[in-house]
């Protein structure tokens, strides 16, 4: 795809993509990659520093930190990614319907979105968690419920732009079914906008969800999760501050990678910049396209 080629030119974005892919693979195949059982408690190894057997050392219960990090990818990154995709999916469906059909459909759907958006996100997430109880699934449900409206709004704006283009009008006039038009013509172009928005949101979602876990509202012990690992590390912060290093850095690296990826995608997928690598500057001179006879 042209997009990937453009992206590969941006070294930072390529590196980020590589890191993210590595993280995802590590997470998916955690049992293969993790050197030890993440929940195996060994009190003799409490607070042990890094060693050949345990590369990142051991935590306050003697568990292998590296293994816990790797297994922690699943709730901290993979499940968040799933929630993001669900959220974007719902939002996109609503956004496409609203932006394409406009009129009454648009008005009703956007009213619903406005109502959803007038709730403060974080607060409502807490409310949902408060009602359903703590736990990773509940947090993710809360997030999907809150975020879809935002995606719907943004995607709808994007769809509106493209739906007004002439080629769509021609398709409609030619009698092609609405479903085909949406799938064949509109989805591919809005895909780039959606990709940029989604990767950007991923950053805040990772931070917020790990934040909730940090507060103890997320996954239950003894499962590994980066936010919760930081919580546990904080309890022994005064005596063993080094335990905070690994999970914190993991989060920073993951969030930064998604951030760079989002920036890179935006530049690579922007149709205006597709043909030039540099940012175009405005000059008055354009190549002559009419030769006088």
């Amino acid at each position, binding site marked *: 795809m042209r997009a990937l080629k453009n992206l590969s030119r941006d070294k930072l974005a390529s590196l980020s993509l590589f890191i993210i892919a590595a993280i995802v693979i590590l997470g998916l195949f955690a049992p293969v990659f993790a050197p030890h059982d993440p929940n195996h408690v060994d009190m003799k190894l409490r607070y042990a520093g890094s060693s050949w057997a345990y590369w990142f050392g051991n935590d306050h219960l003697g568990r292998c930190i590296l293994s816990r990090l790797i297994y922690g990818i699943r709730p901290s990154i993979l499940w968040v990614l799933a929630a993001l995709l669900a959220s974007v999916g719902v939002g996109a469906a609503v956004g496409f319907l609203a932006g394409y059909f406009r009129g009454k459909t648009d008005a009703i759907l956007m009213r619903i979105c406005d109502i959803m958006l007038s709730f403060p996100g974080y607060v409502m997430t807490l409310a949902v968690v408060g009602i359903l109880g703590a736990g990773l699934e509940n947090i993710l449900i809360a997030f999907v419920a809150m975020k879809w409206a935002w995606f719907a709004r943004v995607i709808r704006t994007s769809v509106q732009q493209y739906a007004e283009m002439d080629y769509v009008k021609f398709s409609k006039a030619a009698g092609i079914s609405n479903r085909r038009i949406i799938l064949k013509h509109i989805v591919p172009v809005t895909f780039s906008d959606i990709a940029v928005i989604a990767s950007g949101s991923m950053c805040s979602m990772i931070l917020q969800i790990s934040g909730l876990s940090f507060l103890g509202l997320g996954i239950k012990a003894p499962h590994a999760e980066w936010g919760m690992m930081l919580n546990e590390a904080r309890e022994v912060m005064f005596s063993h501050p080094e335990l905070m290093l690994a999970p914190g850095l993991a989060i920073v690296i993951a969030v930064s990678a998604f951030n760079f990826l989002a920036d890179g995608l935006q530049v690579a997928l922007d149709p205006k910049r597709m043909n030039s690598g540099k940012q175009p*500057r*405005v*000059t*008055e*001179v*354009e190549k*002559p396209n*009419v030769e*006088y*006879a």
Partner: protein
Amino acid sequence: MLNMLEVNHLRVWDANEGKEIIRDSSFRLKPQTCLAIVGESGSGKSLTCRSIIRLHKPWIRQSGEILFKGENLNQLSVKEMRRRRGKQIGMIMQNGMGAFDPSSVVGVHFQETLKGHFGWSKSQVETAMKKAMESVMLNHPIETMNKYPYQLSGGMLQRLMIALTLVLSPDIVIADEPTTALDTISQYEVVEQFIQLRERMGGSMIFVSHDLGVVKKIADEVLVMRNGVIVESGSVEEVLSAPRHPYTQYLVSTRLELSSHFNEIMRGE
């Protein structure tokens, strides 16, 4: 004074892309004449105007001699250049809607400009602008001055700029495609206003346009530009009736085709 403005070997280039836009431009503006600059989009017409008042985008650079009343404008300090802008060299922009600050009423711009140049009080500014606005056929001047740019039409905004120019009375007025963004009727009205502006102020004017019809009406001399180079210059009659350069011939003939076809239809042939 021989020439109001003398431009010698003007060179304009894009420092970011290292591309030269205007190669080696030289022309004269005689006192009390109107010089038109014509050409297609991208020929460098607007950049030439911007070079005279030295207001480019930050990555555009210029070199050469621009003699105005004996002084080389290119060598003046920024501060001194600012003093000449508005009062001695005035400019009228193409897009009236964008020319005024969208967050203030247009009256504010007049107040600030005239206070800055002449030190007038609020009421003095109002009186002067009222008179000028009435002479450019803007009714309800006080009301208009209290409106925001988005509430006024393109034609009205152009006339506001002309009114301000009347009050400032600069020696040179540079009009950068003032009628391009207007509909035909407004175009006609605004061109009439420009002709009157010339008569009333008696100074020189540089009028940029790509419309040969307007040029024929208002200008005395004309420069034809293409890709940053002046390909032909001379009086309007010479250039438009007997063009020498192939490009000018092409421009004129295309225009002629349109109007001759129109005349044929009107005559019923």
